[in-house]
């Protein structure tokens, strides 16, 4: 039994996997942008990664129990921030997601909400204290989740809003949701799909278009369906071995949309082929399995919930992003964690990993 949490107790295996994924990401960002007006983007991404690693160390030093103590405050703070964004945030790409941080880089506040929901739900599930999640508890979980989801949806940002849901679902599952409630939940979701379909008139035009595009990609080869089609062409034409680093025509000539960010996996698939994709997917599988391993070794359920919250979000990101790239899911603007270019997203992932390290460092501490 040790008395103090120590940095040596970081999960170095996990960090090695993270390093491998981020290296591939930075290389692909370089390949995608070096011959364009955006050349040099990889350096910015390295800067974000550096900031992220620093953030990870900082957050790992604050005992996660302390953080969970402040869960209600954090939750209220998060909701308030979302409201502020709705009121004064400035639009980018047709959605209000950003707040200006005193002249510094803009920060996408919904990323912050992801961290907060992990902590809040971890605290809630820890308080259940049985292995049976009652219906009232389930309802509370739903409310806690739906309020921020709703606020993010109003920005509107369907992708990030959806990302909060798996934290609740995985948490509820681990907290001992009854199978019949789980079944009812699935049925409800299934029923929601046609309802949502009928409600699509209330969606923003770009969202409607994304859904239309997903359902009938071939009908509109010049607009949003064009993005998916171009992504599929990039992936498919990469073949088994890939076209080679910096040699993907879809990528280099700009046919792949936002090839350095949301569609970075398509760019990589074109240049590194099926082999490259498999390597990436296996690295993510390793990441998730290693995270679950950390959850299993957590000192308490609170730690476990935190680690699994992080796991749920990262896993969901990978699943949705990779599916989107091959046209299995609509375009929702969910980046591939650790690979896609982006400050807020990168910061979130490292802060989330900081929480995981936080839990791991304290597994032997009393």
């Amino acid at each position: 039994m040790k008395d103090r949490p120590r940095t040596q107790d970081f999960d170095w295996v996990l960090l090695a996997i993270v390093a491998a994924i981020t290296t591939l990401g930075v290389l692909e960002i370089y390949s995608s942008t070096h011959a364009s007006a955006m050349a040099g983007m990889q350096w910015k991404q390295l800067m974000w990664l550096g900031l992220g690693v620093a953030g990870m160390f900082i957050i790992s030093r604050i005992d996660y129990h302390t953080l969970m103590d402040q869960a209600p405050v954090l939750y209220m703070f998060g909701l308030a921030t979302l409201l502020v964004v709705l009121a004064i945030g400035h639009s980018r790409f047709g959605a209000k997601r950003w707040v200006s941080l005193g002249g510094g880089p803009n920060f996408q506040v919904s990323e912050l909400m992801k961290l907060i929901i992990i902590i809040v739900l971890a605290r809630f599930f820890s308080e259940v204290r049985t292995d049976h999640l009652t219906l009232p508890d389930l309802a509370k979980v739903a409310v806690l989740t739906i309020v921020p989801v709703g606020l993010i949806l109003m920005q509107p940002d369907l992708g990030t809003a959806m990302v909060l849901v798996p934290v609740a679902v995985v948490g509820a599952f681990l907290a001992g949701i009854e199978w019949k409630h789980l079944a009812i939940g699935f049925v409800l979701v299934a029923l929601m799909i046609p309802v949502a379909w009928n409600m699509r008139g209330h969606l923003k035009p770009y969202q409607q278009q994304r859904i239309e595009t997903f359902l009938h990609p071939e009908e509109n080869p010049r607009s949003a369906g064009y993005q998916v089609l171009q992504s599929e062409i990039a992936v498919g034409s990469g073949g088994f071995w890939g076209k080679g680093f910096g040699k993907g025509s879809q990528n280099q000539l700009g046919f792949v949309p936002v090839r350095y960010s949301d569609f970075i996996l398509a760019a990589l698939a074109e240049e590194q082929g099926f082999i490259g994709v498999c390597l990436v997917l296996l690295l993510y599988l390793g990441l998730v399995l290693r995270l679950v391993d950390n959850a299993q070794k957590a000192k308490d359920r609170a730690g476990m919930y935190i680690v699994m919250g992080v796991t749920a979000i990262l896993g969901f990101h990978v699943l949705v992003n990779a599916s989107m790239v091959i046209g299995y899911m609509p375009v929702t603007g969910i980046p591939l964690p650790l690979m896609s270019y982006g400050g807020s997203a990168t910061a979130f992932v490292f802060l989330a990993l900081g929480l995981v390290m936080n839990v791991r460092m304290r597994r032997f501490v009393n």
Partner: protein
Amino acid sequence: MPSWSVNDQKIPQGRLALVSYVFVTIVVLLMVGFWKLQVVQSGHFADLAERNRVRSIPIIAPRGPMIDREGRVLVDSYPSFSILLMRDDPKSLEKSLPQIEDGLGIDPSDLRQALDAAKSEPKFMPVIIKPAATQADIAFVDSHRADIPVLELMMVQRRRYPHDSMLASAIGYVGEVSVQDMDQSDGHYRPGDLVGKAGLEREYNDQLEGTDGMRRVVVNSVGKVMRTLDNVEAIPGRPVQLTIDYDLQAIAESDMQGKEGAVVAMDARTGEVLAMVSRPTFDPNDFSVRVPKEEWQRLNTDKQTPLLNRAIQAQLAPGSVFKIVMATAMLESKAVPENFTAYCPGSAVFYGRTFHCWRPQGHGTVGLHAAIVDSCDVFFYNVGKQLGIDKISFYASGLGFGRRTGIDLPSEEPGLVPSEEWVERVYHHKWYAGETISVSVGQGAVTVTPIQLARMAAAVASGGTLVQPHLLKSFPNPKVDHFVLSDNTVEQVTQGLYGVVNEGGGTGYHLRLQNIDLCGKSGTAQLMSYDAANRLGNKKMDGWFVGFAPRRNPEIVIAAIVQDTMEHGGEAAGPVVRDIVKAYYDKKTARSQQQATTTSPAEPSSTKPLVATVGVPHP
């Protein structure tokens, strides 16, 4: 310590493991998805990627020029620009419209109409708003690339007819390929391709049209050309050299200015057409861009049929020119004695009907020669009566009437030679003997085209050799028909035709030329019956003159018709023939003089290339 952090619960290892399994399953499914795209369908997507980045831009091949027999340009092509309006961004399009209307001088309603017409087409298909851009238009588009991005220039090859309507009826015109032609072409033609639609443009389309080239370029996602992969140059169409002599054509054109009718001048020995005019006519330049609907309507419905090439398509009563055929038939068939004479009091009665001679006071007693020279109708009424329609028909057919000459132009008309068999077949009644009398002077059912008349006259003067008229200088193996005539026949008929021009009292005496044995025959065809014309006071006639020189085995033969005239053929059409023949001989004299100087041993090196291009057209 808060209640929630009391560490009294075990970690649910089983459920955590389950979460891992779920994720493993998802990763496997994703790998299957990538496998499908990258391995199973990779060929298909590689193909799509290739098509994405490689764009084929056609390079339009210029159509071959047409030159006259001495290499002078009659038709050529020039590069030109069309202005395209891109429609894929409706917002910036709407915004720029007023500026475009202003800058290019396009009527707003025209522009609107062009856009409306293209409404049903896909958005990425641009609209041509100005097919022939001027220098100022091009400058406008170039200088506004940044603020009016919806405009684009496309290089095209446009047909140019530098002499406007000269030879237009024979040359024809070009136009966009029709849907049927496109379907039949087996992919050879694309929408918007220009093809010959009429005349020589159509006849020699295969030779004139080149092979479009193709430039394959790599483009990026916004269509910007990054680099060129390969470049297949366009193969320009081959030039077509015509037998037309620009100088003679110009004279024929100016003589026919403001008149209605046709002229065809031909080398009597070879069938080479030296000049061909049809009036009224059109300017093929109007077709090389885009014919406004109203203009096309006008050209097609105009009673004066400007799109008709009268030299080969007008089927007209030959009038007295037909007397050449009658005289030939009379002498060859021997059905009428050579020394046959008739008394002409100005009219004669056959089968109970009065037939008038063109000269009301009559010709007195005339034999064959005089009857030809002064074109006595009564003489030939009598000849026709004795010959009968079937003999007339035999010789008329033998001399090329009633069938196409085979000239290398589309839509030639055959004319008509009536016969007993024909009237029974078509009208299901017996031949009226009185009709034979009308046919004897080229009236009634017999119709001919100017080109047939020219060929007939050449055939008679050359002992029965019918050449195939043609406009292509290198026409392969022109067909030659022989309808052998005895020397006596040729001699007597040509003497008569010589007399027409060179004897006082001849209908063409005013046309005689010094040192040139111009022979000919005038003809004046009534457009309605003698009585009806008198009653209505309508004296409008078709005036013919067919002439050739020299008298035996002529070099040049010309048929001219001036329609709807108040004058007789000799006066109306004769001068056209005379002018062309004179110009022909003037050129010939000049050429032989030049040849004499250039071939002189003193200056062997001064041989001008002109001689080489002129060659020796008359071996």
